[in-house]
């Protein structure tokens, strides 16, 4: 046997082994196995402190109306919802106002204020909302999150322990009417779900999913508040890290939240994971390599690409793809996604695309996020792209090519 084939085969098997560990962690992790993660109440939490929900909005997400509405149905005694926007003309503003009009009995504020305190547009959106938040607990919840009725009651229960500083939630992808949306949901339900559960279960690493973060105001202010993360892309990671360093525990809740992705294009999928890849490369450094070697499908396809089609390379790719898809299917069923069985056929394609995307951060350190272009540095520190010189010329060329192909 050729040594190259053996290397790729060994890496593929290693990747499958790593994925098996992730599946095990998903299966056995308390975040998945308790009834509450599927929206069924366990026991009533002993305390219900008032909570301010901060929802930074920009643009229309799939299912935005239902997502926002789900926060008006919380089975919780006292909470306020603050929809925060930078611009009155944002299409999400109209949806937020519709929700406010529909639920006049709820404590809902639509707050529009342009804030340019930092370079992170989400943090810029959160700063004004935080300023008007009334309650001692704040929940940062992304606009693409849909919650079940017992969401607040479930996550606050972890805060009974004063040693807990931040509660985050595992996330599952739901829906998928287009190929891009199916790829996104497959990735959320395999790589993201597996990695978060694995880090939480086996490595005891503080793992924060920025789509849902519950904190005390006092704890956030003790680590520098939003001002301390206004110029980083991964504000969730940094808040979690600082919370951990301050001696407070970062907890992954037992309540799973839904991210509805219905009509994504493939380009949107590629753009998001290129951005997330760059972020992890800047944060993780050399550890970022583990993502590549734990992608068994991509490794098996590399064998096919480098050694050409033969019985053993095709058998390796097909076998690894089958095992990986079976794993995806198992997790999908375990966490209760509604994905059709046929969707899992796209799993290997998704893994190959993710494999190629892995290399992009090594070649480029710029990101375009919410319409702004940044250079991303260590710990995801952002700096604006220069408007002049070589950078400017480079982007003009890229934009011209894009316009030609549009």
């Amino acid at each position, binding site marked *: 046997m050729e040594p190259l084939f053996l290397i790729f085969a060994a890496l593929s098997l290693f990747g499958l082994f790593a994925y098996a560990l992730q599946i095990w962690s998903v299966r056995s992790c308390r975040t998945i196995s308790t009834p509450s993660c599927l929206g069924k109440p366990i026991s009533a939490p002993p305390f219900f402190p008032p909570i301010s929900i901060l929802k930074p909005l920009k*643009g*229309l997400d*799939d*299912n*935005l*109306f*239902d997502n926002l509405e789900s926060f008006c149905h919380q089975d919780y005694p006292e909470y306020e919802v603050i929809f925060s926007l930078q611009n009155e003309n944002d*299409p*999400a503003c*109209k*949806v937020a106002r*519709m929700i406010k*009009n*529909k639920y006049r009995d709820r404590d809902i504020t639509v707050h529009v204020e342009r804030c340019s305190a930092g370079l992170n547009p989400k943090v810029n959106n959160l700063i004004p909302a935080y300023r008007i938040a009334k309650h001692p607990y704040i929940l940062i919840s992304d606009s693409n999150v849909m919650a079940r009725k017992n969401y607040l009651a479930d996550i606050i229960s972890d805060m009974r322990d004063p040693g807990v500083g931040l509660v985050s939630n595992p996330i599952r992808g739901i829906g998928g*009417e*287009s190929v891009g949306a199916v790829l996104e949901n497959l990735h959320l339900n395999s790589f993201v779900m597996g990695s978060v559960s694995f880090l939480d279960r086996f490595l005891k690493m503080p793992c924060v999913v920025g789509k849902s973060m519950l904190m005390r105001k006092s704890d956030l202010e003790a680590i520098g508040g939003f001002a301390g993360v206004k110029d980083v892309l991964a504000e969730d990671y940094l808040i979690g890290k600082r919370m951990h360093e301050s001696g407070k525990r970062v907890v992954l809740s037992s309540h799973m939240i839904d991210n509805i992705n*219905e*009509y994504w*294009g493939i380009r949107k999928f590629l753009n998001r994971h290129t951005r997330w890849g760059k972020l992890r490369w800047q944060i993780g450094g050399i550890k970022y390599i583990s993502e590549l070697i734990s992608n068994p499908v991509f490794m098996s396809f590399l064998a096919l690409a480098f050694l050409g089609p033969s019985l053993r390379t095709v058998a390796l790719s097909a076998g690894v793809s089958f095992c990986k898809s079976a794993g995806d299917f198992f997790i999908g069923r375990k966490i209760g996604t509604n994905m059709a069985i046929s969707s899992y056929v796209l799993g290997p394609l998704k893994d190959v695309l993710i494999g190629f995307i892995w290399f992009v951060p090594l070649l480029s350190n710029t990101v375009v996020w919410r319409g702004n272009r940044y250079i991303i540095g260590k710990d995801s520190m952002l700096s604006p792209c220069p408007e002049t010189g070589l950078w400017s010329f480079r982007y003009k060329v890229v934009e011209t090519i894009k316009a030609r192909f549009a």
Partner: protein
Amino acid sequence: MLLCDFHIHTTYSDGSIELQKVVDIYGQAGFDVIAITDHVVNNDSSIGKLAHRFKYTVKEENFQEYMDAIEFESTRAWDKYGMLVISGIEISKNYINPDLSAHILLLDLKGFISASWDYERIFREAREQDALIVACHPQGLSDMSKDTYHLWNNREKYAKYIDAWEIANRDDVFNVVSLKKYPYIANSDFHKARHLYSWKTLLNCSKEVGAIKQCIRHNKGVAITLFRN
């Protein structure tokens, strides 16, 4: 101002998304008024016959089912989103020669109108039903396969029947409508989810079918906007 789209297709003709999901896409995005306007295609040309063969048309046989489905969705959309859903069709007279082809939106229609009828009969019947008559994409489109020039080439003859002309359709703008000072609206010609982000109409009137029709016919308080995310 009411955010409106009066030109939307579903799987009842050549749209790629089912009626219920289309209504949800617009409701979730905060629209005030939409009109479902699936194709009713002529059966007197080779292209028209193809549409019938592949069921890319509402036919007289399933017209009532189509209207009932819109009625059901209209109630649901009003209750859930406060969004008004108007029933309609797009009369599609398709020929190989674009000079002979024309597409006409008939909004708030009550009974079936065939696309194989002659223009005068279609307009008269639509008027009798008090439907709003809109001339679609009167000039060349970036998607040349659906160019329809007949109404514009014969505008002197037909303008008296037409309540409004599409001044913009999805990504295309027809400045000739402005030059002629014809009443106008702008629509997406929605077939796929990405078509949500396209030209739309803004109306300054109450959210009622009668008021909307009157606003468009009088063409006061009408504006167009390029709806983007």
